[in-house]
């Protein structure tokens, strides 16, 4: 089990960040998104290979309206 944006999520076996995004129907090529795993900011180029450990907290963010 991993926690994606606060929600318990079954990530499957040793999921990469790319796998997690696809599982949530987010195209990894989407512009304007970023991912942190356990409070470490990841690089887009790492998404196909960086695996998300069990119990990890994954934050997927994008720009929203704000002052």
């Amino acid at each position, binding site marked *: 089990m991993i926690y994606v*944006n*606060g929600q318990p999520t079954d990530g499957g076996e040793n999921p990469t960040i790319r796998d997690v995004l696809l599982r*949530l*129907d*987010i195209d990894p090529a*989407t*512009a*304007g*998104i*970023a*991912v*942190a795993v356990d*409070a470490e*900011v*990841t*690089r*887009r180029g790492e998404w196909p290979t960086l695996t998300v450990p069990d119990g990890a907290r994954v*934050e*997927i*963010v*994008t*720009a*929203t*309206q*704000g*002052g």
Partner: protein
Amino acid sequence: MTAPLHIAGRELRSRLLLGTGGFARLATLGDAIEACECELVTVAMRRVDPATQGSLLDVISERGVDVLPNTAGCFTARDAVLTAQLAREALGTDWVKLEVIGDERTLLPDAPELLVAAEQLVDDGFVVLPYTNDDPVLARRLQDVGCAAVMPLGSPIGSGMGIANPANITLIVQAAGVPVILDAGVGTASDAALAMELGCDAVLCASAISRAADPVAMAHAIRLAVEAGVLARGAGRIARRTHARASSPLQGVAEFAE
């Protein structure tokens, strides 16, 4: 036309920055961007909602302006630094409007956390524009750690109370070696004009425009107010006096028969 503003080597023709928060409709935001002729608009970083992703950035890029991500919602230096780093990855900019808030009721900056975050982000290569209190000493400290501008509040975020302490804003302007951007508290055009008359280099508005009854008209009004304030500052206002000083000559007044 007023002189351009320079921040961290970048030239900005507009001295008005627009916050994108509070617009009820994205189409209105797009029209307001056009009406205020800004070049930078702030955005916040939040968890992805797959239903809405992309559209805000589309509206901004369609209008040909750049995003300035903020760290709104962060209460600690750690969270603000992480949020800035996420924004850099997501949006491809190393500029950040740094906000570290002390509490939800006032939304006032947490000065010690702000200073720590500013120093870390500068060291990490960011162009840091910190939202700060109207405190001349804190503004100086932020400049000393390498911030590219300082963004003192006029009054609390979204309050529309204008510039509560013009004397402190003046002190910040007098001491600053970096641009001063009046941030937060602007309620209407005259507040923006006053900021520029006090010597600020730019104004950032969000709620004053986005929550006005007619946001696009207010965007236009505040753009003109910023320009008017710059021109008035350059023109040199008259000194305030306690008593009247006639502008019509006192000699040659006609004396009428009883």
